[in-house]
Protein backbone atom coordinates (compact mmCIF):
# COMPACT_ATOMS: atom_id res chain seq x y z
CA UNK A 1 0.00 0.00 0.00
CA UNK A 2 2.87 2.37 0.72
CA UNK A 3 4.13 2.30 -2.85
CA UNK A 4 0.70 3.20 -4.14
CA UNK A 5 0.59 6.01 -1.63
CA UNK A 6 3.93 7.33 -2.83
CA UNK A 7 2.79 7.18 -6.44
CA UNK A 8 -0.47 8.99 -5.79
CA UNK A 9 1.35 11.57 -3.73
CA UNK A 10 3.71 12.11 -6.67
CA UNK A 11 0.81 12.45 -9.06
CA UNK A 12 -0.68 15.17 -6.89
CA UNK A 13 2.61 17.04 -6.88
CA UNK A 14 2.86 16.57 -10.63
CA UNK A 15 -0.37 18.49 -11.07
CA UNK A 16 1.27 21.56 -9.58
CA UNK A 17 4.29 21.11 -11.86
CA UNK A 18 1.91 20.97 -14.80
CA UNK A 19 0.59 24.49 -14.19
CA UNK A 20 4.13 25.79 -14.06
CA UNK A 21 5.35 23.98 -17.18
CA UNK A 22 2.24 24.88 -19.17
CA UNK A 23 2.93 28.57 -18.52
CA UNK A 24 6.47 28.22 -19.80
CA UNK A 25 5.20 26.36 -22.83
CA UNK A 26 2.64 29.07 -23.58
CA UNK A 27 5.25 31.84 -23.48
CA UNK A 28 7.60 29.90 -25.72
CA UNK A 29 4.84 29.01 -28.14
CA UNK A 30 3.67 32.56 -28.68
CA UNK A 31 6.94 34.46 -28.76
CA UNK A 32 9.72 31.91 -29.13
CA UNK A 33 11.32 33.08 -25.91
CA UNK A 34 12.67 30.47 -23.51
CA UNK A 35 11.92 32.20 -20.26
CA UNK A 36 14.75 31.35 -17.89
CA UNK A 37 13.15 33.70 -15.38
CA UNK A 38 10.03 31.57 -15.15
CA UNK A 39 11.18 29.99 -11.90
CA UNK A 40 11.59 33.42 -10.36
CA UNK A 41 8.05 34.38 -11.39
CA UNK A 42 6.96 31.30 -9.51
CA UNK A 43 9.08 32.31 -6.55
CA UNK A 44 7.44 35.74 -6.50
CA UNK A 45 4.02 34.08 -6.51
CA UNK A 46 5.08 31.92 -3.58
CA UNK A 47 6.24 34.97 -1.66
CA UNK A 48 3.01 36.83 -2.34
CA UNK A 49 1.16 33.99 -0.66
CA UNK A 50 3.66 33.82 2.18
CA UNK A 51 3.54 37.57 2.70
CA UNK A 52 -0.26 37.91 2.63
CA UNK A 53 -0.54 34.93 4.96
CA UNK A 54 1.96 36.07 7.58
CA UNK A 55 1.34 39.81 7.42
CA UNK A 56 -2.44 39.88 7.09
CA UNK A 57 -3.37 36.39 8.19
CA UNK A 58 -5.15 35.82 4.92
CA UNK A 59 -6.27 32.27 4.18
CA UNK A 60 -3.64 30.83 1.77
CA UNK A 61 -6.38 29.70 -0.60
CA UNK A 62 -7.65 33.27 -0.84
CA UNK A 63 -4.16 34.49 -1.68
CA UNK A 64 -4.15 32.47 -4.88
CA UNK A 65 -6.47 34.74 -6.93
CA UNK A 66 -4.49 37.73 -5.66
CA UNK A 67 -1.18 36.13 -6.55
CA UNK A 68 -2.61 35.29 -9.96
CA UNK A 69 -3.86 38.82 -10.58
CA UNK A 70 -0.73 40.60 -9.32
CA UNK A 71 1.60 38.43 -11.35
CA UNK A 72 -0.58 38.72 -14.44
CA UNK A 73 -0.17 42.49 -14.33
CA UNK A 74 3.50 42.10 -13.51
CA UNK A 75 3.96 39.76 -16.47
CA UNK A 76 2.23 42.16 -18.86
CA UNK A 77 4.38 45.04 -17.64
CA UNK A 78 7.52 42.95 -17.91
CA UNK A 79 6.65 41.97 -21.46
CA UNK A 80 5.80 45.54 -22.45
CA UNK A 81 8.90 47.10 -20.94
CA UNK A 82 11.62 44.51 -21.41
CA UNK A 83 10.90 41.24 -23.16
CA UNK A 84 9.16 42.89 -26.10
CA UNK A 85 12.50 44.35 -27.14
CA UNK A 86 14.05 40.97 -27.90
CA UNK A 87 11.12 39.58 -29.90
CA UNK A 88 12.39 38.39 -33.24
CA UNK A 89 16.01 38.62 -32.12
CA UNK A 90 18.08 35.43 -31.99
CA UNK A 91 17.00 33.01 -29.25
CA UNK A 92 20.27 33.51 -27.45
CA UNK A 93 19.68 37.16 -26.69
CA UNK A 94 16.33 36.36 -25.11
CA UNK A 95 18.01 33.54 -23.16
CA UNK A 96 20.63 35.93 -21.83
CA UNK A 97 17.96 38.52 -21.09
CA UNK A 98 15.71 36.19 -19.14
CA UNK A 99 18.76 34.78 -17.36
CA UNK A 100 19.58 38.34 -16.32
CA UNK A 101 16.00 38.86 -15.17
CA UNK A 102 16.11 35.68 -13.12
CA UNK A 103 19.35 36.79 -11.47
CA UNK A 104 17.85 40.21 -10.83
CA UNK A 105 14.60 38.94 -9.29
CA UNK A 106 16.47 36.47 -7.15
CA UNK A 107 18.72 39.23 -5.87
CA UNK A 108 15.78 41.49 -5.12
CA UNK A 109 13.98 38.68 -3.29
CA UNK A 110 17.11 37.90 -1.28
CA UNK A 111 17.25 41.53 -0.20
CA UNK A 112 13.56 41.72 0.65
CA UNK A 113 13.04 38.39 2.36
CA UNK A 114 16.58 37.06 3.12
CA UNK A 115 17.76 33.58 2.16
CA UNK A 116 15.83 31.92 5.02
CA UNK A 117 13.48 29.08 4.28
CA UNK A 118 9.86 30.04 4.87
CA UNK A 119 6.69 28.04 4.99
CA UNK A 120 2.95 28.55 4.95
CA UNK A 121 1.51 26.07 7.42
CA UNK A 122 -1.99 25.31 6.22
CA UNK A 123 -4.07 22.11 6.18
CA UNK A 124 -1.10 20.22 7.54
CA UNK A 125 -2.92 17.00 8.33
CA UNK A 126 -3.58 14.09 6.04
CA UNK A 127 -6.82 12.51 4.96
CA UNK A 128 -7.66 8.94 4.20
CA UNK A 129 -8.91 8.34 0.66
CA UNK A 130 -9.62 4.74 -0.39
CA UNK A 131 -7.27 3.57 2.33
CA UNK A 132 -4.43 5.87 1.25
CA UNK A 133 -3.17 8.52 3.62
CA UNK A 134 -2.85 11.61 1.50
CA UNK A 135 -1.73 15.07 2.50
CA UNK A 136 -4.65 17.48 2.50
CA UNK A 137 -2.58 20.30 1.03
CA UNK A 138 -1.50 18.18 -1.89
CA UNK A 139 -5.08 17.19 -2.63
CA UNK A 140 -6.25 20.80 -2.53
CA UNK A 141 -3.26 21.95 -4.56
CA UNK A 142 -3.92 19.28 -7.16
CA UNK A 143 -7.55 20.33 -7.43
CA UNK A 144 -6.63 23.98 -7.89
CA UNK A 145 -3.95 23.04 -10.40
CA UNK A 146 -6.53 21.08 -12.38
CA UNK A 147 -8.90 24.03 -12.37
CA UNK A 148 -6.21 26.45 -13.55
CA UNK A 149 -4.86 24.16 -16.25
CA UNK A 150 -8.33 23.27 -17.38
CA UNK A 151 -9.38 26.91 -17.39
CA UNK A 152 -6.42 27.89 -19.50
CA UNK A 153 -7.10 25.02 -21.84
CA UNK A 154 -10.68 26.19 -22.28
CA UNK A 155 -9.51 29.75 -22.78
CA UNK A 156 -7.20 28.61 -25.56
CA UNK A 157 -9.69 26.24 -27.20
CA UNK A 158 -13.08 27.81 -26.75
CA UNK A 159 -12.63 31.57 -26.89
CA UNK A 160 -11.87 33.95 -29.71
CA UNK A 161 -8.89 35.34 -27.88
CA UNK A 162 -7.57 31.83 -27.30
CA UNK A 163 -7.83 31.28 -31.01
CA UNK A 164 -5.77 34.43 -31.57
CA UNK A 165 -3.12 33.11 -29.19
CA UNK A 166 -3.02 29.78 -30.99
CA UNK A 167 -2.84 31.46 -34.37
CA UNK A 168 0.03 33.64 -33.21
CA UNK A 169 2.00 30.68 -31.95
CA UNK A 170 1.51 28.88 -35.24
CA UNK A 171 2.55 31.74 -37.48
CA UNK A 172 2.90 35.19 -35.97
CA UNK A 173 3.25 37.06 -39.24
CA UNK A 174 0.26 35.40 -40.84
CA UNK A 175 -1.79 36.07 -37.71
CA UNK A 176 -0.87 39.72 -37.98
CA UNK A 177 -1.89 39.81 -41.61
CA UNK A 178 -5.25 38.39 -40.60
CA UNK A 179 -5.81 41.33 -38.32
CA UNK A 180 -4.78 39.89 -34.97
CA UNK A 181 -3.13 42.38 -32.66
CA UNK A 182 -0.02 40.28 -32.14
CA UNK A 183 1.47 42.67 -29.64
CA UNK A 184 -1.57 42.37 -27.43
CA UNK A 185 -1.47 38.61 -27.76
CA UNK A 186 2.14 38.63 -26.61
CA UNK A 187 1.35 40.85 -23.62
CA UNK A 188 -1.54 38.62 -22.62
CA UNK A 189 0.47 35.43 -23.09
CA UNK A 190 3.34 36.61 -20.96
CA UNK A 191 0.85 37.79 -18.36
CA UNK A 192 -0.96 34.48 -18.46
CA UNK A 193 2.30 32.52 -18.29
CA UNK A 194 3.43 34.59 -15.30
CA UNK A 195 0.09 34.13 -13.60
CA UNK A 196 0.33 30.36 -14.03
CA UNK A 197 3.84 30.38 -12.62
CA UNK A 198 2.56 32.43 -9.68
CA UNK A 199 -0.31 30.05 -8.96
CA UNK A 200 2.03 27.08 -8.95
CA UNK A 201 4.32 29.07 -6.63
CA UNK A 202 1.46 29.78 -4.23
CA UNK A 203 0.60 26.07 -4.20
CA UNK A 204 4.22 25.05 -3.70
CA UNK A 205 4.43 27.47 -0.76
CA UNK A 206 1.72 25.44 0.96
CA UNK A 207 3.38 22.09 0.21
CA UNK A 208 7.11 22.76 0.67
CA UNK A 209 9.32 25.39 2.24
CA UNK A 210 10.24 28.24 -0.03
CA UNK A 211 13.27 30.49 -0.42
CA UNK A 212 14.41 33.01 -3.03
CA UNK A 213 16.55 30.44 -4.84
CA UNK A 214 13.74 27.93 -5.36
CA UNK A 215 13.22 29.02 -8.97
CA UNK A 216 16.41 27.40 -10.22
CA UNK A 217 15.28 23.88 -9.40
CA UNK A 218 11.80 24.43 -10.78
CA UNK A 219 12.90 25.84 -14.11
CA UNK A 220 14.90 22.67 -14.71
CA UNK A 221 11.87 20.63 -13.73
CA UNK A 222 9.79 22.53 -16.25
CA UNK A 223 12.32 21.87 -19.00
CA UNK A 224 12.40 18.19 -18.08
CA UNK A 225 8.59 18.08 -18.21
CA UNK A 226 8.48 19.66 -21.62
CA UNK A 227 11.19 17.27 -22.76
CA UNK A 228 9.08 14.35 -21.60
CA UNK A 229 5.72 15.55 -22.80
CA UNK A 230 6.69 17.06 -26.08
CA UNK A 231 6.00 20.51 -27.33
CA UNK A 232 3.07 22.80 -27.28
CA UNK A 233 0.43 20.29 -26.44
CA UNK A 234 -1.24 20.86 -23.12
CA UNK A 235 -1.85 17.17 -22.67
CA UNK A 236 1.79 16.38 -23.23
CA UNK A 237 2.95 18.83 -20.61
CA UNK A 238 0.40 17.46 -18.18
CA UNK A 239 1.54 13.89 -18.77
CA UNK A 240 5.19 14.90 -18.45
CA UNK A 241 4.49 16.74 -15.20
CA UNK A 242 2.72 13.78 -13.62
CA UNK A 243 5.55 11.45 -14.70
CA UNK A 244 8.17 13.70 -13.20
CA UNK A 245 6.18 14.13 -10.01
CA UNK A 246 5.96 10.37 -9.54
CA UNK A 247 9.60 9.77 -10.49
CA UNK A 248 10.79 12.39 -8.01
CA UNK A 249 8.62 11.15 -5.19
CA UNK A 250 9.77 7.58 -5.78
CA UNK A 251 13.42 8.67 -5.84
CA UNK A 252 12.93 10.62 -2.63
CA UNK A 253 11.26 7.63 -1.01
CA UNK A 254 13.75 4.97 -2.06
CA UNK A 255 16.97 6.98 -2.13
CA UNK A 256 17.10 10.48 -0.68
CA UNK A 257 15.81 13.96 -1.40
CA UNK A 258 19.15 15.08 -2.82
CA UNK A 259 18.80 12.50 -5.56
CA UNK A 260 15.17 13.40 -6.14
CA UNK A 261 16.31 16.85 -7.10
CA UNK A 262 18.66 15.27 -9.62
CA UNK A 263 15.91 13.34 -11.39
CA UNK A 264 14.74 16.38 -13.33
CA UNK A 265 18.25 17.26 -14.47
CA UNK A 266 19.00 13.69 -15.45
CA UNK A 267 15.80 13.44 -17.52
CA UNK A 268 16.50 16.78 -19.13
CA UNK A 269 20.06 16.01 -20.12
CA UNK A 270 19.42 12.42 -21.18
CA UNK A 271 16.48 13.22 -23.43
CA UNK A 272 18.25 16.20 -24.97
CA UNK A 273 21.32 14.15 -25.70
CA UNK A 274 19.32 11.33 -27.20
CA UNK A 275 16.98 13.64 -29.12
CA UNK A 276 19.12 16.60 -30.05
CA UNK A 277 16.48 18.12 -32.29
CA UNK A 278 15.29 19.91 -29.17
CA UNK A 279 12.28 19.45 -27.06
CA UNK A 280 10.13 22.37 -28.06
CA UNK A 281 9.84 20.57 -31.35
CA UNK A 282 9.68 22.18 -34.75
CA UNK A 283 10.32 25.76 -33.75
CA UNK A 284 11.79 26.66 -37.06
Amino acid sequence: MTILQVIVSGLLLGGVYAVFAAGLNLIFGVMRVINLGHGELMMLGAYITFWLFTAFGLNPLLTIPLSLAIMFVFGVLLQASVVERVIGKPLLSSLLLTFGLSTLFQGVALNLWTANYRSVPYLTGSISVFGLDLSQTRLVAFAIALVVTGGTYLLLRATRFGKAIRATSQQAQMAQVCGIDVRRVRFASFGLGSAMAAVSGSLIAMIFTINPEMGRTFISRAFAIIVLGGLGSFGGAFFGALTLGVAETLAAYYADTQLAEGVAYAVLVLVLLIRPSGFFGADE
Partner: protein
Amino acid sequence: MSDHAEVIEQRPATGTHGDGARSTDADDSGLTTRPVTAPLPAWERHLPRIYLVTLAIVIVLLAFVPQRVSPYNLTLILTVLLTISLSTSWNIISGFAGYTSFGHAGFFGIGSYVGALLLFNEVMPWILAMIVAGLSTALVALIIGYPALRLRGPYFAITMLGLSEIARIVTTAWESVTRGGIGVYLPILRDSTPNYYAMLIVTVIAVVVSYFVGSSRFGLVLRSIRDDEVAAQSMGLDTTRAKLAAFTLSSFFPGIAGAIYARHVGFIDPVTVFAVIWSIRAITTAILGGQGTFLGPIIGAIVLTLVSETVWSSNPFLYQVIFGGLIVGVVLFLPGGLMELMQRFGWLPRSRRL
Protein backbone atom coordinates in the same frame (compact mmCIF):
# COMPACT_ATOMS: atom_id res chain seq x y z
CA MET B 1 23.57 39.46 -36.28
CA SER B 2 24.52 41.83 -39.10
CA ASP B 3 27.23 43.37 -36.95
CA HIS B 4 29.11 40.12 -36.84
CA ALA B 5 29.19 39.91 -40.60
CA GLU B 6 31.06 43.18 -40.61
CA VAL B 7 33.65 41.83 -38.28
CA ILE B 8 34.45 39.01 -40.63
CA GLU B 9 34.49 41.16 -43.72
CA GLN B 10 36.64 43.88 -42.37
CA ARG B 11 39.89 43.16 -44.16
CA PRO B 12 40.21 44.53 -47.70
CA ALA B 13 41.35 41.86 -50.10
CA THR B 14 44.20 44.02 -51.33
CA GLY B 15 45.62 44.34 -47.87
CA THR B 16 45.95 48.10 -48.14
CA HIS B 17 45.27 50.17 -45.09
CA GLY B 18 44.02 53.65 -44.52
CA ASP B 19 42.83 54.58 -48.00
CA GLY B 20 39.27 55.70 -48.39
CA ALA B 21 38.83 54.36 -51.91
CA ARG B 22 36.52 51.52 -51.02
CA SER B 23 34.14 53.57 -48.96
CA THR B 24 33.96 56.24 -51.69
CA ASP B 25 32.98 53.56 -54.19
CA ALA B 26 30.25 52.41 -51.88
CA ASP B 27 28.93 55.95 -51.55
CA ASP B 28 28.87 56.42 -55.33
CA SER B 29 26.61 53.47 -55.83
CA GLY B 30 24.05 55.22 -53.69
CA LEU B 31 22.89 51.90 -52.30
CA THR B 32 24.74 51.75 -49.01
CA THR B 33 24.46 54.55 -46.51
CA ARG B 34 27.38 53.33 -44.46
CA PRO B 35 30.53 51.60 -45.70
CA VAL B 36 30.44 47.94 -44.77
CA THR B 37 34.21 47.87 -44.59
CA ALA B 38 35.61 50.87 -42.77
CA PRO B 39 39.31 51.13 -43.52
CA LEU B 40 41.46 49.98 -40.66
CA PRO B 41 43.81 52.54 -39.15
CA ALA B 42 47.52 52.04 -39.69
CA TRP B 43 48.20 51.15 -36.07
CA GLU B 44 45.88 48.14 -36.32
CA ARG B 45 48.68 46.24 -38.04
CA HIS B 46 50.94 46.78 -35.06
CA LEU B 47 48.43 45.48 -32.54
CA PRO B 48 50.26 42.19 -31.91
CA ARG B 49 53.38 44.13 -31.01
CA ILE B 50 51.40 46.61 -28.91
CA TYR B 51 49.83 43.69 -27.04
CA LEU B 52 53.19 42.02 -26.53
CA VAL B 53 54.71 45.16 -25.03
CA THR B 54 51.64 45.83 -22.87
CA LEU B 55 51.56 42.24 -21.67
CA ALA B 56 55.26 42.34 -20.78
CA ILE B 57 54.82 45.58 -18.83
CA VAL B 58 51.73 44.28 -17.02
CA ILE B 59 53.43 41.01 -16.12
CA VAL B 60 56.48 42.81 -14.73
CA LEU B 61 54.27 45.17 -12.73
CA LEU B 62 52.10 42.37 -11.39
CA ALA B 63 55.14 40.25 -10.57
CA PHE B 64 56.24 42.78 -7.96
CA VAL B 65 52.79 43.23 -6.49
CA PRO B 66 52.99 40.65 -3.64
CA GLN B 67 55.97 42.40 -2.03
CA ARG B 68 54.26 45.78 -2.10
CA VAL B 69 50.58 45.47 -1.32
CA SER B 70 48.51 44.40 1.65
CA PRO B 71 47.07 40.86 1.80
CA TYR B 72 43.63 42.34 1.16
CA ASN B 73 44.72 44.01 -2.05
CA LEU B 74 46.62 40.89 -3.09
CA THR B 75 43.40 38.89 -2.82
CA LEU B 76 41.58 41.64 -4.73
CA ILE B 77 44.04 41.43 -7.63
CA LEU B 78 43.84 37.65 -7.46
CA THR B 79 40.07 37.94 -7.81
CA VAL B 80 40.48 40.21 -10.82
CA LEU B 81 42.83 37.66 -12.41
CA LEU B 82 40.42 34.82 -11.61
CA THR B 83 37.55 36.74 -13.20
CA ILE B 84 39.60 37.51 -16.30
CA SER B 85 40.43 33.85 -16.78
CA LEU B 86 36.77 32.87 -16.25
CA SER B 87 35.30 35.44 -18.62
CA THR B 88 38.01 35.00 -21.24
CA SER B 89 37.50 31.28 -21.36
CA TRP B 90 33.70 31.58 -21.34
CA ASN B 91 34.09 33.91 -24.30
CA ILE B 92 35.89 31.26 -26.36
CA ILE B 93 32.87 28.98 -26.67
CA SER B 94 30.08 31.46 -26.00
CA GLY B 95 31.38 34.70 -27.46
CA PHE B 96 33.31 33.51 -30.50
CA ALA B 97 31.24 30.42 -31.31
CA GLY B 98 27.89 31.67 -30.00
CA TYR B 99 27.22 28.60 -27.84
CA THR B 100 26.11 30.37 -24.67
CA SER B 101 27.05 28.29 -21.66
CA PHE B 102 25.21 28.83 -18.39
CA GLY B 103 27.22 26.01 -16.86
CA HIS B 104 30.76 27.25 -16.46
CA ALA B 105 30.22 27.12 -12.70
CA GLY B 106 30.28 23.35 -13.22
CA PHE B 107 33.81 23.43 -14.61
CA PHE B 108 34.92 25.77 -11.87
CA GLY B 109 33.44 23.45 -9.26
CA ILE B 110 34.88 20.26 -10.73
CA GLY B 111 38.31 21.87 -10.97
CA SER B 112 38.09 23.07 -7.37
CA TYR B 113 37.16 19.63 -6.17
CA VAL B 114 39.79 17.73 -8.15
CA GLY B 115 42.46 20.15 -7.01
CA ALA B 116 41.32 20.23 -3.39
CA LEU B 117 40.99 16.46 -3.09
CA LEU B 118 44.42 15.89 -4.59
CA LEU B 119 45.85 18.33 -2.07
CA PHE B 120 43.81 16.93 0.79
CA ASN B 121 44.98 13.38 0.14
CA GLU B 122 48.52 14.62 -0.50
CA VAL B 123 48.79 12.75 -3.76
CA MET B 124 51.14 15.05 -5.61
CA PRO B 125 52.87 18.42 -5.43
CA TRP B 126 50.36 21.25 -5.53
CA ILE B 127 51.38 22.71 -8.88
CA LEU B 128 50.92 19.33 -10.51
CA ALA B 129 47.55 18.99 -8.75
CA MET B 130 46.39 22.28 -10.24
CA ILE B 131 47.36 21.16 -13.73
CA VAL B 132 45.64 17.80 -13.25
CA ALA B 133 42.52 19.68 -12.15
CA GLY B 134 42.55 21.69 -15.39
CA LEU B 135 43.16 18.61 -17.49
CA SER B 136 40.31 16.77 -15.80
CA THR B 137 37.79 19.51 -16.57
CA ALA B 138 39.05 19.56 -20.15
CA LEU B 139 38.47 15.81 -20.27
CA VAL B 140 34.97 16.23 -18.85
CA ALA B 141 34.28 18.88 -21.49
CA LEU B 142 35.55 16.58 -24.22
CA ILE B 143 33.25 13.78 -23.08
CA ILE B 144 30.09 15.82 -22.57
CA GLY B 145 30.89 18.18 -25.42
CA TYR B 146 30.60 15.57 -28.10
CA PRO B 147 26.90 14.90 -27.53
CA ALA B 148 26.03 18.31 -26.01
CA LEU B 149 27.47 20.39 -28.84
CA ARG B 150 25.24 18.67 -31.35
CA LEU B 151 22.42 20.60 -29.71
CA ARG B 152 21.66 23.94 -31.24
CA GLY B 153 22.50 27.05 -29.23
CA PRO B 154 19.50 27.45 -26.91
CA TYR B 155 19.26 23.75 -26.12
CA PHE B 156 22.97 23.64 -25.44
CA ALA B 157 22.53 26.54 -23.00
CA ILE B 158 19.79 24.73 -21.09
CA THR B 159 21.71 21.45 -21.08
CA MET B 160 24.75 23.17 -19.61
CA LEU B 161 22.56 24.59 -16.88
CA GLY B 162 21.44 21.05 -16.06
CA LEU B 163 24.90 19.46 -16.33
CA SER B 164 26.37 21.97 -13.90
CA GLU B 165 23.67 21.13 -11.37
CA ILE B 166 24.20 17.40 -11.91
CA ALA B 167 27.89 17.91 -11.15
CA ARG B 168 26.93 19.60 -7.89
CA ILE B 169 24.48 16.87 -6.91
CA VAL B 170 26.94 14.08 -7.74
CA THR B 171 29.66 15.82 -5.74
CA THR B 172 27.34 16.15 -2.76
CA ALA B 173 26.11 12.57 -2.95
CA TRP B 174 29.49 10.89 -3.56
CA GLU B 175 30.54 11.17 0.04
CA SER B 176 33.20 8.46 0.08
CA VAL B 177 35.38 10.46 -2.29
CA THR B 178 34.29 14.07 -2.00
CA ARG B 179 33.30 14.11 1.69
CA GLY B 180 29.84 15.23 0.56
CA GLY B 181 28.15 18.34 1.83
CA ILE B 182 30.66 18.80 4.67
CA GLY B 183 33.20 20.12 2.21
CA VAL B 184 36.96 19.86 2.11
CA TYR B 185 39.24 21.69 4.51
CA LEU B 186 42.75 22.37 3.31
CA PRO B 187 45.74 23.38 5.42
CA ILE B 188 45.82 27.10 6.07
CA LEU B 189 48.62 28.77 4.16
CA ARG B 190 50.61 31.52 5.77
CA ASP B 191 51.61 33.00 2.45
CA SER B 192 49.28 33.35 -0.50
CA THR B 193 52.00 34.62 -2.86
CA PRO B 194 52.43 31.25 -4.66
CA ASN B 195 48.67 31.16 -5.34
CA TYR B 196 48.88 34.64 -6.73
CA TYR B 197 51.70 33.74 -9.10
CA ALA B 198 49.91 30.58 -10.18
CA MET B 199 46.76 32.56 -10.94
CA LEU B 200 48.82 35.16 -12.80
CA ILE B 201 50.40 32.53 -15.00
CA VAL B 202 47.06 30.85 -15.72
CA THR B 203 45.44 34.16 -16.58
CA VAL B 204 48.28 35.17 -18.89
CA ILE B 205 48.07 31.85 -20.70
CA ALA B 206 44.28 32.14 -20.96
CA VAL B 207 44.58 35.64 -22.40
CA VAL B 208 47.27 34.64 -24.90
CA VAL B 209 45.25 31.60 -25.99
CA SER B 210 42.16 33.78 -26.34
CA TYR B 211 44.10 36.20 -28.55
CA PHE B 212 45.31 33.46 -30.85
CA VAL B 213 41.84 31.93 -31.01
CA GLY B 214 40.30 35.30 -31.79
CA SER B 215 42.70 36.38 -34.49
CA SER B 216 43.38 33.05 -36.18
CA ARG B 217 41.61 31.07 -38.85
CA PHE B 218 40.21 28.91 -36.06
CA GLY B 219 38.56 32.02 -34.67
CA LEU B 220 37.01 32.70 -38.05
CA VAL B 221 35.59 29.20 -38.10
CA LEU B 222 34.07 29.77 -34.66
CA ARG B 223 32.59 33.10 -35.73
CA SER B 224 31.11 31.56 -38.82
CA ILE B 225 29.49 28.91 -36.61
CA ARG B 226 27.99 31.67 -34.52
CA ASP B 227 26.65 33.56 -37.53
CA ASP B 228 25.31 30.61 -39.48
CA GLU B 229 26.29 27.10 -38.56
CA VAL B 230 24.60 25.43 -41.50
CA ALA B 231 26.34 27.74 -43.94
CA ALA B 232 29.67 27.09 -42.25
CA GLN B 233 29.09 23.37 -42.56
CA SER B 234 28.16 23.58 -46.19
CA MET B 235 31.36 25.52 -46.86
CA GLY B 236 33.15 22.35 -45.81
CA LEU B 237 34.21 23.45 -42.34
CA ASP B 238 34.49 20.74 -39.70
CA THR B 239 32.21 22.54 -37.27
CA THR B 240 31.98 19.66 -34.81
CA ARG B 241 35.72 19.53 -34.35
CA ALA B 242 35.99 23.31 -34.03
CA LYS B 243 33.23 23.48 -31.45
CA LEU B 244 34.70 20.62 -29.47
CA ALA B 245 38.14 22.21 -29.50
CA ALA B 246 36.73 25.57 -28.40
CA PHE B 247 34.65 23.94 -25.67
CA THR B 248 37.61 21.97 -24.32
CA LEU B 249 39.84 25.05 -24.28
CA SER B 250 37.03 26.98 -22.66
CA SER B 251 36.75 24.47 -19.82
CA PHE B 252 40.45 24.04 -19.09
CA PHE B 253 41.08 27.44 -17.52
CA PRO B 254 38.03 27.51 -15.20
CA GLY B 255 39.14 24.11 -13.91
CA ILE B 256 42.67 25.16 -13.11
CA ALA B 257 41.50 28.52 -11.74
CA GLY B 258 39.01 26.70 -9.54
CA ALA B 259 41.77 24.53 -8.10
CA ILE B 260 43.91 27.56 -7.32
CA TYR B 261 40.89 29.26 -5.78
CA ALA B 262 40.32 26.20 -3.58
CA ARG B 263 43.92 26.27 -2.38
CA HIS B 264 43.66 29.99 -1.76
CA VAL B 265 40.47 30.01 0.31
CA GLY B 266 41.32 26.75 2.11
CA PHE B 267 37.76 25.44 2.31
CA ILE B 268 35.31 24.40 -0.37
CA ASP B 269 31.91 22.76 -0.36
CA PRO B 270 29.51 21.93 -3.18
CA VAL B 271 27.24 24.88 -2.54
CA THR B 272 29.96 27.51 -2.86
CA VAL B 273 32.05 26.24 -5.78
CA PHE B 274 29.14 25.04 -7.91
CA ALA B 275 27.15 28.22 -7.23
CA VAL B 276 25.53 29.72 -10.30
CA ILE B 277 27.16 33.01 -9.34
CA TRP B 278 30.41 31.79 -10.98
CA SER B 279 28.63 31.45 -14.29
CA ILE B 280 26.89 34.78 -13.74
CA ARG B 281 30.22 36.42 -13.04
CA ALA B 282 31.83 35.06 -16.21
CA ILE B 283 28.82 35.95 -18.36
CA THR B 284 28.24 39.44 -16.97
CA THR B 285 31.86 40.53 -17.22
CA ALA B 286 32.26 39.09 -20.70
CA ILE B 287 29.12 40.62 -22.17
CA LEU B 288 29.71 43.95 -20.43
CA GLY B 289 33.12 44.18 -22.08
CA GLY B 290 31.89 42.74 -25.34
CA GLN B 291 31.41 39.09 -26.13
CA GLY B 292 33.12 37.74 -29.18
CA THR B 293 36.06 40.11 -28.88
CA PHE B 294 39.47 39.46 -27.39
CA LEU B 295 39.74 42.60 -25.28
CA GLY B 296 36.10 42.79 -24.16
CA PRO B 297 36.10 40.08 -21.48
CA ILE B 298 39.38 41.40 -20.07
CA ILE B 299 38.10 44.96 -19.85
CA GLY B 300 34.76 43.81 -18.44
CA ALA B 301 36.43 41.63 -15.81
CA ILE B 302 38.78 44.37 -14.64
CA VAL B 303 36.14 47.09 -14.52
CA LEU B 304 33.41 45.03 -12.93
CA THR B 305 35.56 43.23 -10.37
CA LEU B 306 37.26 46.38 -9.15
CA VAL B 307 33.99 48.28 -8.96
CA SER B 308 32.06 45.45 -7.34
CA GLU B 309 34.73 44.56 -4.79
CA THR B 310 35.12 48.11 -3.65
CA VAL B 311 31.51 49.30 -3.82
CA TRP B 312 29.19 46.49 -2.89
CA SER B 313 31.30 43.55 -1.76
CA SER B 314 29.76 43.86 1.70
CA ASN B 315 26.31 42.89 0.45
CA PRO B 316 26.36 39.71 -1.66
CA PHE B 317 22.64 40.04 -2.40
CA LEU B 318 23.00 43.51 -3.83
CA TYR B 319 25.80 42.10 -5.94
CA GLN B 320 23.33 39.75 -7.56
CA VAL B 321 20.81 42.52 -8.19
CA ILE B 322 23.39 44.64 -9.93
CA PHE B 323 24.81 41.78 -11.99
CA GLY B 324 21.32 40.74 -13.08
CA GLY B 325 20.44 44.31 -13.93
CA LEU B 326 23.66 44.67 -15.89
CA ILE B 327 22.94 41.58 -17.99
CA VAL B 328 19.48 42.91 -18.82
CA GLY B 329 20.81 46.38 -19.59
CA VAL B 330 23.62 45.15 -21.80
CA VAL B 331 21.41 42.77 -23.77
CA LEU B 332 18.83 45.51 -24.37
CA PHE B 333 20.96 48.55 -24.99
CA LEU B 334 24.50 47.48 -25.70
CA PRO B 335 24.58 43.97 -27.17
CA GLY B 336 28.21 44.38 -28.18
CA GLY B 337 29.30 45.64 -24.79
CA LEU B 338 31.82 48.39 -24.07
CA MET B 339 33.87 47.36 -27.12
CA GLU B 340 30.95 48.12 -29.40
CA LEU B 341 30.42 51.43 -27.67
CA MET B 342 34.00 52.41 -28.38
CA GLN B 343 33.70 51.20 -31.94
CA ARG B 344 30.52 53.19 -32.41
CA PHE B 345 32.29 56.35 -31.31
CA GLY B 346 35.08 55.53 -33.72
CA TRP B 347 37.68 55.13 -31.01
CA LEU B 348 38.37 51.56 -32.03
CA PRO B 349 38.28 49.96 -35.47
CA ARG B 350 36.31 46.80 -36.14
CA SER B 351 39.35 44.63 -36.03
CA ARG B 352 39.52 40.93 -35.36
CA ARG B 353 42.62 41.55 -33.29
CA LEU B 354 40.65 43.50 -30.72
